[in-house]
């Protein structure tokens, strides 16, 4: 398979967003490689983000899809009050730039806004920032090997789960 074009790359990101918006978490997990890196850095100060996850704090840092599976398990468990009334989310993705990497992978840069309606409290909030995806071909299908979520508005109102970014 050849590298993804701009339109195909954008469609890949839209599909991931659609799975999250629909709460189709199995399909969402299936987009990730088993050894994927999933990382939302924290902010060190006003202007710089943490960039060494082993020496600095992240908002979320996972090596391997297994951790994402745990998150989904918690959401579905029926034992998390924060997940009892699920917030409704709507992802908007734009400014997609795709480039081929040396090792036949793809790097995708994009911007996101996630509008969240917190049904429990009837409050709305928007999370926004940038995504950096690295895709890898696995058995003929593109999978997410690395996703960095650079959250710009990081004062979190009450909580933020994986479907909110």
């Amino acid at each position, binding site marked *: 398979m050849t590298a993804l074009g701009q339109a195909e790359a954008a469609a890949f990101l839209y599909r991931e967003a659609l799975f999250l918006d629909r709460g189709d978490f199995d399909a969402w997990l299936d987009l990730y490689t088993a050894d994927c890196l999933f990382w*939302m*850095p*924290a*902010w*060190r*100060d*006003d202007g710089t983000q*943490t960039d060494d*996850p*082993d*020496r*600095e*704090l*992240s*908002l*979320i*840092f996972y*090596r*391997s899809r*297994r*951790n994402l599976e*745990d*998150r989904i*398990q*918690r959401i579905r*468990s029926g*034992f*998390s*009050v*924060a*997940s009892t009334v699920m917030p409704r989310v709507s992802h908007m993705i734009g400014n997609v730039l795709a480039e081929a990497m040396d090792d036949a992978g793809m790097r995708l840069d994009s911007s996101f806004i996630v509008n969240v309606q917190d049904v*429990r*409290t009837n*409050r709305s909030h928007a999370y926004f920032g940038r995504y950096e995806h690295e895709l890898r071909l696995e058995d003929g299908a593109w999978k997410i090997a690395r996703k960095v979520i650079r959250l710009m508005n*990081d*004062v*979190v*109102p*009450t*909580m*933020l*789960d994986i479907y909110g970014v």
Partner: protein
Amino acid sequence: MMKRFALRDLVDDRPQDGVFRINRSLFRDPALFDLEMKHVFEGGWVFVGLSTQAENPHDYFAGTIGRVPIIVSRDGNGELRCFVNACPHKGVRLVQKLCGNARRHVCPYHSWTFDSAGTNRNIKWKKSGCYSAGFDEENHDLASVPRFGEYRGFLFASLNPDVPSLEEHLGETRKLLDLVVDKSPDGVELVPGRVCFTFAANWKMQLENCADQYHFTSTHPSYIRILDQRAKEQSSEVVQSSIAAADFWQEDASGVTGGTYSFDHGHVLNWGVMPVSAALPEYERADDLARAHGTAKRDWMFNMRNLTIFPNLQIAENASSQMRVIRPIAHDLTEMQTWCIAPRGESAQARSFRIRQYEDFFNPTGMATPDDTVCYEEAQYGMAEQERPWLQGHARGLTASVEGGNDYSELIDLKPAQSVLADAQLCDESLFGSYYRAWAARMAEVLS
């Protein structure tokens, strides 16, 4: 002055009758909140930061005491200072950044200039300003916060000059801060990366939750199930939890599993026995710590400890190690500033392990804290109830609470005012009395 609130209507504290109750007004009344800001947060000692946040000359960081913006700055001689972050000219906030290094702070509005000790160094076009003699008699420096002190790197300040010494304010809890600091000969530091979140509830929900052992198995079963699963599988793909290695919270645990200590001035500790094991990143230093401090103190360093220094500092050492600062914004809105606090010089593996344990449990983007903060907000809804104003959440342990310490506190020569020795199901709530007695003392002037 007409006093709008009477203490007896807010805190029903009758030890002789075995009663301790709190009125819901403390959580929902905006007028009471305004008084709290002035008298609890701006009327006494509050925590403002760690000395390592301004380590070198001219380093500074910004913060607040109650509603007042402040700067903590290390001057050119290496001395830490604390002043109001407002230019005396027009009141403009002098420093906008969270932290930085500056020999001079220049007001962005009219360029009045101050050094890192807060001294006024220049008033723009002073000579041609046709000022009266009265102006020259005024102090043009940044306003010093009247009381400012440090205990082993923990910095506290008070806008009210008429407070006891910091030594007296902290009292015996200094020994608990020692347990945090002495984990390394080089002391503690904040791991880079501040995490900030809000919740739509009163600040006292957070104040209590930190010391509330009763909620853990009820609020966090979704997290506990994941810990159980991870402990069984021992997969290297996921982080192992320190909590899973302890049984202080397990309902079938037998014998003494922990308890609570209450101190004067509103400070409390709840604690649980945690084994000295590789489930904690401190384990690499277990032998060194025993040699340096003795086995008893070393073992205490491994125990689960949730310490509150009233009214705004919490150090939680349970699933990892967290420093939290509570910043009330409104009667029903609170901001939390949180950091991973860690012993300096620990190995790269230990640091990484600590950070992973931290993120999973403590972050608002993790798997435990969201279930707490959502409960705070649900409590805020329920605080609207008027018919039965008295909460029933401060009664557990009242008959188990004794004056002074016990065998466990003696191990580290700790002398609390009150203590409760607990099995896994006691989950003392009587320690909250310490919060509200300190609250009442700070509010005494405005309560009848």
